[in-house]
């Protein structure tokens, strides 16, 4: 394998472009002759410009770029049955949960501290607890502060949509290019089972009337955003026997109104969370039910499959959370933004991505040419950069890819218990990992010991570390073509 060997990992600890640049040495693509922007073939150039650095709006971008959320807007104007506003825990990882709420001033300091330390940072989001559009003054003030200090940081909000139509013109004025709306229904009969009440027009509404108003405001807000070219992601919580089949209808409605992405997420429901659903025994969907619904949604509004349902104060790449490194007590009083690190990182990434797109395109071509009907499922241990660069024992999740006659497609993630703890691999945990890898044909990782490798083999899973630090697609293509009797892929472009 002679694919370019680059890890983006050391880039995050160096500070100048001069130091970074040699790290990005690649397999002969330095002249930029192969692809100008790193843009995948099937994406509109104008849209690509907006999503290429946003980890939530582009699966490709989430290998390189990080987001952070600041919890500055805690007030909310609706009640959802999957939310308990009293609950808060630093060890929980799910939407709406934070360990500290921030004022706009504190948020600015935190954003600067993170930007100085996390060069992958590209997006600042306000995503609860509460509603960014309802608690608008704090949202707006925070964005104005941050825009002044770090002009190139993308601003992004999540909202339930009820107050959204009131603020679309201001969002456009502030150059907010990405908005997520949580839409769980387009039928108030269904909505009444999800939302006990809303606060609108200075009064509380309940039942079908509440759901009808919410629905109308969500659709109006979505249409207004689409009319202004603001990209929208629709989050839908899949609640078995409440809105699971109905989400097909939701997908149709939002597609017709210009939604860019549809992200179906499993309901998180636990009595310990104290939510209505948790306490009433409403269960969430299992992985197979999720996949079945996602498969039925194929061909509608484009699906987001790489969501990790992060906390409302998450910091870092999507699969990691560095939020606890940046709590207020760890941020010194005076923080000044230093643009060097982020700028250097972006230059290297731009180069690296051109290289990757070319390698990926070639790899996919090879897989298609193999013309085999049999798909293979790969689970990849990666810590970013679209490369196989994580040890098997250190992986907390695997990225799942499917290779078939249609090419190579990203399927989703499988979370696993950490197998290697402090250098000692735990046998008991490996059982859990093997269970989580059900259906996987091949595991790709940077390194794996003989013992876990043998145990995986017994479970019918091949573990391969021969493609360490290669591009994911390059390795998949080589293995797939080898498997089905076609010449394996040689060096990447």
């Amino acid at each position, binding site marked *: 394998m002679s694919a370019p060997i680059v890890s983006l990992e050391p880039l995050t600890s160096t500070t100048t472009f001069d130091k970074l640049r040699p790290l990005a040495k690649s397999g002969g693509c330095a002249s930029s002759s192969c692809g100008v922007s790193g843009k995948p073939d099937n994406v509109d150039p104008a849209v690509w410009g907006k999503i290429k650095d946003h980890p939530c709006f582009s699966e490709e971008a989430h290998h390189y770029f990080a987001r952070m959320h600041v919890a500055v807007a*805690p*007030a909310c104007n609706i009640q959802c049955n999957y939310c308990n506003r009293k609950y808060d825990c630093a060890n929980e990882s799910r939407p709406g949960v934070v360990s500290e709420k921030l004022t706009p001033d504190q948020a600015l300091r935190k954003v600067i501290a993170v930007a100085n330390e996390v060069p992958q940072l590209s997006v600042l989001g306000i995503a609860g*607890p509460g509603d960014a559009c309802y608690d608008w003054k704090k949202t707006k003030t925070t964005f104005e502060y941050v825009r002044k200090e770090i002009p190139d940081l993308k601003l992004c909000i999540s909202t339930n949509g009820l107050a959204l139509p009131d603020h679309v013109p201001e969002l456009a004025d502030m150059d907010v290019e990405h908005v997520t709306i949580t839409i769980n229904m387009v039928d108030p009969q269904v909505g009444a089972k999800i939302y006990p009440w809303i606060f609108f027009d*200075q009064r509380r509404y309940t039942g079908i009337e509440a759901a009808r108003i919410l629905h109308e405001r969500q659709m109006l807000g979505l249409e207004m955003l689409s009319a202004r070219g603001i990209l929208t992601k629709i989050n839908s919580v899949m609640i078995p026997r409440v809105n699971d089949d109905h989400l097909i209808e939701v997908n149709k409605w939002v597609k017709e109104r210009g939604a860019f992405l549809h992200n179906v997420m499993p309901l998180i429901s636990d009595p310990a969370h104290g939510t209505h659903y948790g306490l009433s025994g409403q269960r969430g969907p299992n992985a197979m039910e999720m996949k079945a619904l996602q498969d039925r949604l194929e061909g509608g509004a484009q699906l987001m499959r790489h969501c990790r349902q992060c906390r409302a104060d998450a910091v870092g790449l999507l699969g990691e959370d560095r939020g606890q490194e940046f709590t207020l007590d760890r941020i010194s009083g005076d923080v000044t933004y230093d643009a060097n690190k982020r700028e250097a990182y972006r230059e290297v990434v731009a180069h690296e991505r051109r290289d990757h797109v070319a390698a990926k395109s070639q790899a996919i071509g090879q897989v298609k040419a193999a013309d085999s009907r049999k798909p293979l499922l790969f689970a990849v241990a990666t810590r970013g950069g679209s490369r196989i660069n994580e040890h098997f024992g250190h992986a907390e999740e695997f990225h799942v890819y499917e290779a078939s006659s249609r090419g190579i497609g990203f399927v989703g993630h499988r979370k696993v218990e950490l197998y290697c703890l402090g250098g000692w691999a735990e046998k008991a945990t490996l059982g859990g990992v093997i269970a989580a890898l059900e259906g996987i044909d091949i595991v790709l990782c940077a390194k794996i010991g003989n013992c876990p490798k043998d145990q995986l083999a017994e479970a019918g899973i091949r573990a391969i570390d021969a493609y360490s630090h290669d591009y994911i697609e390059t390795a998949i293509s080589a293995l797939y073509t080898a498997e089905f009797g076609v010449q394996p892929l040689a060096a990447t472009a």
Partner: protein
Amino acid sequence: MSFKIIASQCTQCGACEFECPSTAVKFKGESYVIDADKCTECEGAFDAQQCASVCPVPNTCVPA
């Protein structure tokens, strides 16, 4: 003629503060507090008390 907030149940979201038509709600120490002298129970302004209507926790913003 006033409402009050049960401090131990308050999530400190602050919705009551900006909905109050009489600027009677202020954040003090650990929770939001309603100034009984300023609170009008929204009489003459709205049909329902704004703080109690928007409060996310049941039985937390109640008549004093």
